[in-house]
């Protein structure tokens, strides 16, 4: 049963990956006993299952996903939310207010207005209707501070790292809290803008080099170097001040 | 576009075709009956009404005086337009020509133009200044499938029946005289449209067959069995072998039609 690509090789849509008794996994399809790639990505073999880890894909919603979205419209009994994907999500007023919505009493824009950012969970989604969101679980709700960065959704697992190793390292090195939306939107909250910038730099680098090896070490190295550089600059400006 | 065809019917049509017959009893390579009447619109310089099964198309030609195109100063002008008028099908809406009627007009035009059916030099009155402009307007009156072949038959038949006015040049002006000359025609292109349904090729698809077909290919053949225009249509595909098979089939069918119409 032949395979035509090795693990970690880059494939393009239409590339014949394998022929025979294989299972078509992520970003592949099977036709005439052959498994083809359907997106640009990197081959990954999981026993008989062939996956292509996409290097470019948009976010496809799944029930249970944590996402970060922007309110785009205040409707009469809820909000429309942009979750960085082809489908617009809906957040019902009753979910936020934790009780039935009373149009005369409740002024929706006061609760959440156009432009507000929220961390939410997808409650339901299927082929016939748009994703429904909820914010009524702990850790979810309106975002009041921090910085947002968007990366390709398929890279989020890389930002998490094996057993959370990458994300824990970033949090530790930068002192920031990081919330990862599975839709590719990430919220970074630190005690200072500089710390947030560091975390963002690290995340951007992961986005660009996600398919390379030794990434965790390189990022750790980079963060340490950046922090050292910044400390130096700080000390320099301090010394200059005292010289006057 | 047209009414939704039920899944049951779709399956039925596909199964029959896989076995080699069609819902109206035809063989896979059989045409529906072709009937042509010419000269039915007296106000037009030429006209023809074609019935291909129940598909009905009317074509009329009008001749006007005009200027030649700058890169062909010695040639007259031929222009083909098609209208999918609303009364022809529940799926046709009033309005300017959409992509379907534009494609239809251009496929019909291509067959006529590339086969050099009309000797356009004979339409020239004064080189660079005055020529005859031949307008061919294709009017689809009832859509029961295969508008392309029916429209081509109608356009060609209308051109065959077209009479050009006699003229003389007096004091640098073109004056129309009494009497007419037949439009100078050299070739008679015939277009054959073939649908791919499953892995079978089906000639002259009817309306329901068009709704389930994977793709269609139209081949225009001239009097010497040359290919002068081809258009693959619809969002499916053909294998290279099917393309050659379809071209051969079109050539054979066009010979049959040519014999029948005595073109």
């Amino acid at each position, binding site marked *: 049963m032949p395979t035509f690509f090795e693990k970690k090789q880059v494939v393009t849509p239409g590339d*014949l990956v394998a022929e025979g008794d294989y299972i078509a996994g992520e*970003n592949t399809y099977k036709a005439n006993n052959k498994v083809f790639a359907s997106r640009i990505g990197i081959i990954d073999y999981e026993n008989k299952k062939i996956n292509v880890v996409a290097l470019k894909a948009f976010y496809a919603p799944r029930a249970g996903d944590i996402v970060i979205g922007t309110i785009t419209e205040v409707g009469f009994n809820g909000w429309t939310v942009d979750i960085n994907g*082809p489908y617009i999500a809906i957040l019902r007023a009753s979910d936020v207010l934790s009780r039935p919505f009373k149009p005369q009493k409740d002024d929706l824009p006061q609760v959440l207005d156009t432009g507000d950012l929220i961390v939410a969970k997808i409650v339901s989604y299927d082929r016939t209707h748009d994703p429904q969101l909820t914010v009524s679980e702990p850790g979810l709700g309106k975002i009041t501070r921090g910085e947002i960065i968007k990366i390709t959704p398929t890279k989020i697992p890389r930002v998490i790292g094996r057993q959370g190793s990458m994300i824990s390292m970033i949090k530790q090195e930068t002192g920031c809290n990081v919330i990862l939306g599975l839709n590719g939107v990430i919220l970074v909250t630190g005690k200072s803008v500089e710390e947030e910038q560091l975390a963002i730099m690290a995340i951007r680098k992961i986005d660009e080099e996600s398919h390379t090896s030794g990434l965790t070490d390189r990022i750790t190295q980079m963060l340490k170097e950046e922090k050292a550089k910044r400390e130096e600059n700080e000390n320099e400006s301090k010394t200059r001040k005292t010289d006057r | 576009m047209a009414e939704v065809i039920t899944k049951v019917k779709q399956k039925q049509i596909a199964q029959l075709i896989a076995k080699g017959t069609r819902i109206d009893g035809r063989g896979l390579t059989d045409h529906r009956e072709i009937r042509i009447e010419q000269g039915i619109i007296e106000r037009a310089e030429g006209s023809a009404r074609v019935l291909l099964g129940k598909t009905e198309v009317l074509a009329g030609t009008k001749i006007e005086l005009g200027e030649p195109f700058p890169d062909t100063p010695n040639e007259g002008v031929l222009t083909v337009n098609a209208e999918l008028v609303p009364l022809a099908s529940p799926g046709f809406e009033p309005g300017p020509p959409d*992509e379907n009627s534009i494609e239809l007009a251009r496929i019909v035009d291509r067959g006529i133009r590339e086969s050099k059916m009309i000797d356009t030099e004979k339409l020239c009155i004064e080189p660079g200044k005055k020529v005859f402009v031949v307008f061919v307007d294709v009017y689809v009156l009832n859509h029961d499938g295969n508008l392309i072949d029916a429209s081509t038959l109608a356009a060609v038949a209308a051109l065959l029946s077209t009479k050009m006015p006699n003229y003389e040049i007096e004091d640098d002006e073109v004056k129309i005289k009494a009497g007419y000359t037949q439009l100078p025609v050299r070739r008679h292109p015939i277009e054959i449209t073939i649908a791919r349904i499953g892995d079978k090729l089906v000639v002259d698809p009817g309306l329901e067959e068009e709704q389930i077909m994977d793709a269609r290919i139209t081949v225009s053949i001239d009097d010497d069995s*040359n290919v002068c225009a081809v*258009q693959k249509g619809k*969002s499916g595909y053909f294998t290279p072998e099917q393309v050659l098979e379809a071209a051969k089939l079109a050539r054979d069918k066009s010979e049959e039609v040519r014999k029948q119409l005595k073109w």
Partner: protein
Amino acid sequence: MNPKPEKLIDKKGFRLDGRKHDELRSIKLEVGVLSNADGSAYIEQGKNKILAAVYGPREVHPKHLTLNDRMLLRCRYHMAPFSVQERKSPAPSRREIELSKVMREALEPAIFLEYYPRTGVDIFVEVLQADGGTRCASLTAAALALADAGIPMRDLVAACAAGKADDQIVLDLMDEEDKLGSADVPVALMPNLNAITLLQMDGILTLEEFDQAVKLALDGCKLIYDLQKEALKTKYGTVKETEAEE
């Protein structure tokens, strides 16, 4: 205005631009050239300069066009007024409308439309400079733009034309050959599936010549397919080795 050349192919078998009958023009492909589009690609083929962009999948506007069970694909082929010898009006011509339709029908079979129902994908092609074979070059770029947008596809679509110049069947017609030659056969192919998704012809060819031209065009498509894959790998496949060494 250039004078018409007497012959398109000289006695030694060289065409006006020095090519032999089965040679492609020089092709340059670049993926991901526009920052706003979800996917994009740029092609230069001969003197053709064409930009393709993809927006989507996204909500369909106007809403009533939304399809419940699949993605809606729309395609707009458009030529810039300065792209051709004599200025072309920016309003869509009948030719552009037909080509937009024919191109959409050439790309649809490659896309898994059923995966994302109720969404739309818009493909925009702008011909900045035209030199014969624009629909094929446009398709080649559009397919790359679709892949660049992360839209799941069965295969890329590669397109190339063949034709007849003087008495020879030749590959990849340039502008003069397109205008003065006796036939033009544009073809688009999904190479791994052996599926022809665009096929047109105008001119006069015997059945044998038509068959020859189609086969030659298919060879051209396969060569172009390799260039497409290379272009995608150039954008997505580079491992930043230098940084890894730090």
